[in-house]
């Protein structure tokens, strides 16, 4: 499989890199020489960006809290529960009692969708992310 | 397809056996026969290889080491601490100093650990034959010297005088103290010292280098030194000041290792690799301590 162009997921420098994929696993990275920021090198974090991707701690199933413990559930159950609970809070207390934290680790498209969702479906401007932290 | 992605996929048994034998990175299994507590941090594990044939063929020489592994925790090099003449298996003496060795401390007799080896260049038996041997050890540094002591004590005709100076922080921390009286009976001249005095202690107090003062060195003496780095450095200095030649002073080094067979590069020390060119070195072979 060829190398997949990607962007380092750590700091704001935004280094361009290639992910090496073998048998469905990311086995390594190499920096791009033509990228205006990375210019053929990465910092130590960038060089090891592939190491956490296949870590055994990765979440693989939705979890729902039952009797004070998080238990595996199906996507449908989890999503239905979220929709139901958020709608209930919205109706009972009002939209501004719901808060949303977006993420600097997600893509532009996802941030856009989340703020759109917050403003339309939840009806509030309570959306922020960690820019200040 | 030759690539096996999951353990559930069964490999051709013959090929697996073949690959297993050639594969230098995969451990064999060893069963713990017995655990002897040396002090609060150190245990000695008596081990036998699970595979009987392998166990039968297994042999090692004093100064060599094994790579031990524990599930999910990786590997670490550990020196042999039992007599090379032992019939059933071998002993490793392990100090609790990291995640892997801490997990080893939780094991009980009957448990399995992974081992591969033996690796490394042993003590030069031909150079030691007929010589007066001076062992200088500190703490767990006695462990790699113990096979040598056992070896020469059991061959009194081939060995010269055997002397050992052994230092420890406190009297409780001496390793192998169950062996001391047997060794002395068999002709080892043993002197002990501790850094901190204690109530029931009537031996000497002070650094192990202080014991060296009364010892006379001749050309027929070989020194075998093992202990903490700083101790080794001071003993080297003193022995050389007493007129001993650097090539007659021998030590064994400890390094971070991954492969144990001279490939991974972790144990580079100047142009030498501790895992295959060592871990046994003479003082003459060691680089300047300021430029490791």
């Amino acid at each position, binding site marked *: 499989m*060829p190398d997949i162009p990607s962007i380092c997921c750590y700091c704001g420098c935004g280094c361009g890199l290639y992910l*090496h994929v*073998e048998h469905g696993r990311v*086995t*390594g*990275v*190499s*920096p*791009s*020489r*033509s990228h205006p920021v990375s210019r*053929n*090198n990465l910092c*130590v974090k*960038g*060089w090891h960006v592939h190491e956490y991707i296949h870590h*055994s701690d990765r979440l693989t199933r939705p979890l729902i809290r039952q009797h004070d413990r998080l238990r595996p559930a199906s996507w449908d159950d989890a999503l239905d529960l979220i929709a139901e609970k958020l709608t209930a809070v919205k109706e009972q207390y009002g939209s501004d009692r719901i808060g949303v934290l977006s993420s600097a680790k997600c893509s532009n498209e996802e941030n856009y969708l989340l703020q759109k969702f917050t403003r339309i479906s939840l009806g509030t401007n309570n959306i922020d992310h960690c820019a200040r932290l | *397809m*030759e*690539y*096996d*992605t999951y*353990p559930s996929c069964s490999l051709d048994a013959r090929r697996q056996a073949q690959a*297993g034998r050639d*594969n*230098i*990175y*995969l*451990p064999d*299994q060893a*069963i713990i026969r017995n655990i002897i507590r040396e002090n609060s941090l150190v245990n000695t594990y008596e081990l036998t290889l*699970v595979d009987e044939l392998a166990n039968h063929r297994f042999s090692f020489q004093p100064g060599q080491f094994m790579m031990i*592994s524990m*599930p*999910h925790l*990786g*590997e670490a090099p550990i020196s042999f601490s039992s007599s090379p003449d032992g019939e059933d298996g071998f002993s490793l003496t392990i100090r609790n*100093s*990291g995640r*892997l060795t801490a997990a080893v401390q939780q094991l009980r007799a009957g*448990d*399995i*650990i*992974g081992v591969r080896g033996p690796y490394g260049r042993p003590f030069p038996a031909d150079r030691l034959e007929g010589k007066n041997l001076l062992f200088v050890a500190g703490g767990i540094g006695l462990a790699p010297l113990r096979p040598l002591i056992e070896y020469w004590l059991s061959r009194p005709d081939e060995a010269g005088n055997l002397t050992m100076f052994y230092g420890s922080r406190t009297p409780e921390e001496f390793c192998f103290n169950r062996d001391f009286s047997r060794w002395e009976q068999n002709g080892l001249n043993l002197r002990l010292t501790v850094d901190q005095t204690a109530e029931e202690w009537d031996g000497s107090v002070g650094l192990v280098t202080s014991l060296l003062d009364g010892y006379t060195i001749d050309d027929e003496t070989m020194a075998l030194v093992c202990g903490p*780095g700083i101790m080794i450095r001071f003993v080297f200095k003193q022995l050389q000041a007493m007129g001993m030649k650097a090539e007659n002073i021998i030590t064994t080094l400890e*390094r*971070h290792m*991954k*492969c144990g*067979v*001279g*490939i*991974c*590069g*972790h144990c*580079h*020390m*100047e*142009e030498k690799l501790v895992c295959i060119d060592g871990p046994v070195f003479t003082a003459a072979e060691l680089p300047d301590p300021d*430029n490791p």
Partner: protein
Amino acid sequence: MIETQTLHKDYLRPLLRKLGKQYRLVGPVRNRFGDTLYIEITDLDRVDIDLKHQPQNSLKSFFFPQTEPLASYIVDTEPLSPTQLYSFHPLLPENRPTLYFGVRSCDLFAVLYMDMIFLGGKHRDIYYEQRRRGAVFITLGCNEPFANCFCNATRNGPFLEFGFDLQLTDLGPARNSYFVEAGKANGVKIVRKWARFFTVSTKEDRRFQYQAALEARGLFKQLVHVDLACQELEKGCEPEDVLTDFSQRCQDCGGCAFICPTCTCFSITDQARDQGSGERIRSWDGCTFAGFTRMAGGHNPIDMRRHRIRKRFFHKLKHDVQKHGRPSCVGCGRCVDMCFGGVDIIRFINAITEAGDLGRGKKRGV
């Protein structure tokens, strides 16, 4: 006597297409971002084969990937028999006969060095062997060295005398063909089997080839005296000043070791998949990392950055000279422009040779 042929440039692609049926093809390809990398070529017609620029990676990762599972293991908490308690199952890579073409001299030489490390000792590394067995190399001499190259100084380029299966030399626009030398049986086989693409070389071709080799030597932009530096180091030179300077500039990225075609140090870790199983994984490691030599108790025999950088350069230029008779730097120059702080081997070598010149003049050490 090595057979020599010429290959018209137009026939290179048809030849590769034929060879592609027999081998997996790996060669330098320019991608849409303008980066040239050695990659596996699955469709010759959809890639832009680039024989003009230096590939930014070496062949290292094809034989020795950045991370590679060595084995899976099972830990059975309730064993039926003791042997099932903790057992390993090797995960060998496929052995795929591969043709590496457009390989630069430095990169092939680095492979030869890796052969020595992984296969040359008492213990052979079967993972490396599995990937290495059946590899065929068609190298391309460099008529024009790249910005930071100095393979003439490390004596493994710009053209090779041995090691390749076939070596191509660009005879220039006038002739529009490659001069082809076969160095090994596989190369001879290729030339014989696909004779229709090749023409027996003439004296004129040979003259052009010598001319290209001579011109290339004069085009190096870097003047680096590797041999002098090795001599100085052999004499016991300790370049304190430059190492102190480097230690303040090194930013600990490890990039130099990762990009280096001859840096073969690795680490092995066991990574749990779940409670009862996991994988033993090998991954690249670098001697400039503090954790490279740190032992379990926390003691680190090489704990100063200055000593770690020293170790890296000394290994390349002194210790490998002592052990193998030649420096293990192949002069590819990749570590030079990539370093964050200008800690590069050219600066190191120049610092030593300059100080050496000074010493010879004034009888003074570094």
